[in-house]
């Protein structure tokens, strides 16, 4: 037995002296973006002391419970700044009045100091120099050669094979400045449709049902999650993935005014356990059945007359004519599926919606209980909590929060049906009564141009084009050059092993391989590669990720990141803040905007000669007028004060400002929530630069009214029936986990404490399923399948029926492939019998997306990432079964 854990933290921390340098930043990871302070002072100079006057925090040590200001050993690191070794302390801002009030924090943010590059820690493998694969090995080259080759090859490919042969796969969130620069290159100047963000095969909407209902994804403010009496949480547990929304808003809501949560999730999580113990509910449904649950809930509410009649009279949902005008976007901008599904999802208003719900067999309690695997009483109880008026006639304030478990199983129908359900309960446009995503990554997606949707090759009747599916586009051999920025691409997409095979064939499998460290030779070989149908792959990241960087890339560009450059980003309540630079990036690593600047200039495009990050920040304002991140007014006031945008934002510290930014009576104002019927706007109209967005007070539709949508089960049913487990098979679903959430790129290999907790990915399996297979906690298991449905071909005119699973199969667009993933078993009754759970994307070698089908939602083009299916067998024992130094197999929800 080991006598020491894998990681032993220091048992003291140096305190920053009063004259330590101070910086403002936020956590780099999840969407909540807690505010942090950074203190920095040179190694070798005097440390601070425990009295308030002796340290930069200005507080006495020791610190009392819940006081904030405690510096745990993982909040300390040593970095190089201004060319010398310096201590840094990255500590939650104890003075914060917003987001993480009082210095609350997650394990991820609390360990974020360990993210900083320090050659004496596991971060020593940060990418530091541009590299080219020569004879199979990545070797250092100069930035000049690297960007020369990129620019010449990009121009060559565009000229010879068209801009659609140049692909860009990138994150959507890694700061305003970088996103702006990258999309300015791809969209505004190259104008390629072969573009996709990290979590999507194309430009499919995340939440198409919200969009069609007129609900902005990030309409709520965090205070709404506190004010609600009941929160309906679908496909997410904020305890696991939105720590501070849970701790400081929902859990506080329960403790202070009895808020109840209804969790809808196939897995019992800590939040669900807490909810049940405090008067809420956990609806532990079968994966993929949410739409039917939503319809059944709506039916119980309507049959009992519990809908919010007063609200529905005051804000009547759109009628036939308003629906027919294209879900509020006008004919030209309507989504493509609107024409192909004429009348299938639109309603003529409340009565029409009600009649439809009451006519559907799927909304019947017996049917829904059977399909969802839930007791009938639980569905009725949930409907009561959500909508039943109290004896005095008042109603519970209901808010609805959703995430990936909802919209990555049945993309269109889940989001449409939950929007309708929330709306009939009077949620959507009032304090404490909102419908919103809770969020995944932070919001940094500033656009540098318009995505050229019209160039998509898939076309429906009428003028509607579907956005290009980049995975299919690549697998069909249309991508000659790919620029991959800050994403693993392979493991993060569905049927990932099949995708990897295609990529390997197009890169390493092509005979044209660079064999000399010579620019002319490299260009010659890369031209030979693309002319022979292969793909040149350029990967830009902070670490060499597997397999995209380590095996597939021909060129690797090192990026500078959080703390190494000043950046700006928003969180899940649109709060815009500065993430300051406080140390030097390793080697020759550069911020993404700088690298794109070099490429853009060398390709001959104007407007890529930015000198500073602030230059890009100020320019990117123009691309975001009228949007969720509109900060034109903010920059106007910065200019008036004689300050740069970054400097002006620095002054707002961790408070920042909620966008869109407005001005009233000569003062600058943030916007707390969207669709806010209680918001008072000046009767005289908007002042000066302020853009008076319709969504400040109304829904995001043409008329400003909400749309009630139908969600016919048949659109999904054929796929669901085909894909669901048969015989020995189990659902192999995936999700997120508190300790590794939006932080996997740093955590699993590089933050030692997290490495101790999660050295490997797990498969949670129900005790009965485990017993039947002879599996115990700590065993190595294999989840495998020989029927992973992979969508192929396409790019033709289609009807809705052609795009549905049955149509795809009939027309030869489905292939069944094999895939296998090895995981460490964790036996727990937290998961339903028949359902297993694994962590999404924790380890590139253990990406369970290998088992999820890459068949897209016919309504939106998005994947159903969560619906993996496979058989499970024991293959041995992991070292963690008996070695106590790493990992744990204790139930995450014990109490």
């Amino acid at each position, binding site marked *: 037995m080991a006598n020491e854990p894998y990681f032993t933290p220091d048992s003291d921390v140096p305190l920053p002296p009063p004259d330590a340098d101070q910086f403002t930043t936020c956590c780099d990871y999840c969407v909540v973006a807690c505010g942090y302070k950074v203190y920095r002072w040179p190694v070798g100079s005097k440390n601070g002391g425990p009295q308030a006057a002796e340290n930069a925090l200005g507080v006495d040590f020791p610190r009392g419970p*819940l006081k904030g200001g405690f510096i745990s050993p993982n909040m300390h690191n040593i970095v190089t700044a201004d060319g010398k070794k310096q201590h840094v302390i990255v500590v939650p801002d104890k003075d914060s009045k917003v987001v993480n009030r009082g210095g609350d924090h997650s394990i991820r943010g609390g360990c974020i100091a360990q993210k900083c590059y320090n050659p004496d820690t596991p971060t020593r493998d940060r990418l530091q120099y541009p590299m080219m694969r020569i004879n199979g090995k990545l070797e250092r080259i100069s930035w000049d050669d690297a960007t020369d080759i990129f620019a010449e090859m990009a121009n060559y490919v565009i000229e010879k094979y068209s801009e659609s042969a140049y692909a860009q796969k990138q994150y959507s969130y890694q700061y305003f400045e970088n996103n702006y620069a990258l999309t300015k290159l791809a969209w505004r100047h190259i104008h390629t449709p072969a573009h996709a963000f990290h979590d999507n095969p194309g430009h499919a909407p995340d939440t198409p049902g919200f969009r069609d209902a007129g609900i902005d994804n990030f309409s709520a403010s965090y205070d709404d999650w506190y004010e609600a009496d009941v929160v309906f949480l679908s496909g997410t547990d904020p305890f696991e993935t939105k720590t501070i929304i849970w701790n400081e808003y929902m859990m506080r809501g329960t403790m202070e005014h009895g808020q109840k949560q209804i969790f809808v999730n196939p897995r019992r999580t800590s939040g669900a356990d807490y909810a049940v113990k405090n008067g809420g509910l956990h609806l532990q449904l079968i994966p993929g059945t949410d739409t039917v649950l939503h319809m059944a809930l709506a039916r119980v509410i309507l049959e009992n007359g519990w809908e919010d009649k007063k609200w529905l009279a005051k804000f009547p949902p759109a009628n036939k004519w308003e629906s027919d005008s294209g879900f509020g976007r006008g004919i030209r901008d309507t989504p493509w599926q609107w024409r192909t599904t004429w009348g299938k999802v639109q309603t003529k208003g409340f009565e029409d919606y009600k009649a439809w719900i009451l006519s559907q067999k799927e909304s019947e309690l017996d049917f829904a209980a059977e399909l969802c695997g839930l007791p009938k009483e639980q569905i009725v109880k949930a409907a009561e909590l959500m909508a039943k008026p109290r004896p005095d006639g008042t109603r519970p304030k209901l808010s609805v929060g959703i995430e990936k478990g909802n919209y990555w199983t049945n993309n269109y129908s889940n989001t449409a049906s939950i929007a309708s359900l929330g709306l009939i309960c009077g949620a959507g446009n009032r304090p404490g009564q909102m419908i919103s995503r809770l969020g995944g990554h932070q919001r940094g997606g500033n656009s540098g141009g318009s995505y050229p949707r019209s160039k998509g090759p898939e076309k429906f009747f009428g003028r509607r084009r579907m956005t290009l599916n980049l995975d299919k586009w690549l697998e069909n051999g249309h991508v000659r050059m790919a620029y991959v920025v800050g994403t693993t691409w392979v493991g993060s997409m569905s049927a990932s092993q099949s995708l990897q095979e295609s990529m390997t064939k197009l890169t390493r499998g092509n005979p044209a391989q660079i064999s000399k460290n010579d620019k002319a030779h490299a260009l010659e070989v890369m031209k030979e590669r693309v002319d022979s149908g292969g793909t040149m792959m350029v990967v830009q990241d902070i670490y060499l990720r597997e397999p995209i960087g380590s095996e597939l890339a021909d060129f690797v560009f090192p990026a500078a990141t959080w703390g190494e450059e000043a950046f700006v980003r928003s969180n899940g309540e649109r709060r815009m803040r500065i993430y300051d630079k406080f140390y030097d990036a390793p080697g020759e690593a550069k911020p993404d905007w700088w690298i794109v600047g070099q490429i853009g200039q060398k390709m001959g495009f104007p407007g890529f000669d930015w000198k500073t990050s602030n230059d890009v920040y100020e320019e990117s304002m123009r691309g975001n007028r009228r949007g969720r991140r509109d900060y034109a007014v903010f920059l106007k006031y910065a200019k008036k004060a004689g300050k740069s945008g970054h400097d002006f934002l620095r002054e707002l510290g961790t408070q920042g400002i909620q966008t869109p930014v407005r001005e009233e009576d000569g003062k600058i104002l943030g916007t707390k929530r969207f669709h806010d019927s209680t918001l008072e706007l000046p009767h005289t109209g908007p002042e000066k630069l302020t853009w008076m967005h319709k969504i400040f007070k109304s829904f995001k539709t043409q008329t400003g009214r909400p749309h009630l949508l139908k969600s016919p089960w048949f659109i999904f049913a054929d796929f669901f029936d085909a894909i669901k487990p048969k015989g020995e098979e189990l659902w192999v679903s995936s999700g997120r986990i508190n300790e590794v959430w939006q932080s996997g790129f740093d955590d699993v290999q590089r933050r030692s404490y997290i490495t101790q907790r999660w050295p490997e990915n797990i498969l949670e399996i129900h005790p009965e399923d485990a017993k039947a297979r002879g599996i115990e906690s700590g065993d190595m298991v294999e989840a495998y399948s020989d029927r992973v449905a992979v969508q192929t071909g396409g790019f033709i005119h289609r009807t809705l029926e052609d795009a549905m699973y049955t149509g795809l199969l009939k027309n030869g667009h489905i292939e069944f492939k094999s895939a296998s993933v090895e995981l460490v078993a964790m036996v727990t009754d937290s998961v339903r019998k028949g359902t297993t759970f694994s962590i999404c994307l924790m380890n590139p070698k253990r990406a369970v997306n290998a088992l999820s089908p890459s068949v897209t939602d016919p309504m939106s083009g998005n994947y159903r990432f969560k619906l993996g299916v496979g058989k499970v067998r024991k293959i041995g024992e992991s070292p963690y079964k008996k070695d106590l130094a790493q990992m744990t197999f204790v139930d995450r929800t014990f109490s």
Partner: protein
Amino acid sequence: MSSEFKILETDSDGEGRACQLSRRRFLQAAGVGGATLAMLTVPGCGTLMARTARLPSKRLASLADLEVDKPVTVMYPDPKSMCMLVKLGVPAGGGVGPDGDVVAFSMSCPHMGMTMIGAYNAKHKGMGPCPSHLSRFDLTRYGIVVSGHATQSLPQVLLEVKEGEIYATGLRGLLYGRNGNLG
């Protein structure tokens, strides 16, 4: 620097786990702190040095007094730090006694400092959920976070047994609220 300071050299097999503290960082750290230091060797890491503080030894209880799953409250390293001594009934990392199952941990949650009174879970050999924010810890595995928000394991009291008496000799990790365990 303490006179107990010494370095143990072992060979690395070159393919082990990433070591959390290199010698260089250790020496850097050692130069600025006053804590006594313990050297560790972990397979695959070569020499691994961690700043596990040895603190004044204190008798906590007799082995004979402990019953399985009946935790005892003890104060260590000073009267302001409430800890829990427990015989788990199953072998545990850092466990002492004939069955290697006697362990002691701080009762202050390392996330925000709430005292976890009555939070020992006999079925799961865990501590938690913390009443403030629901963090949970596995006492068989050095107090590691099972789920929750703490940025380190539950600080573990290092134990020794001499003639049936259990002594606390130090702490692994930093007690909540302090900048040093004797703070």
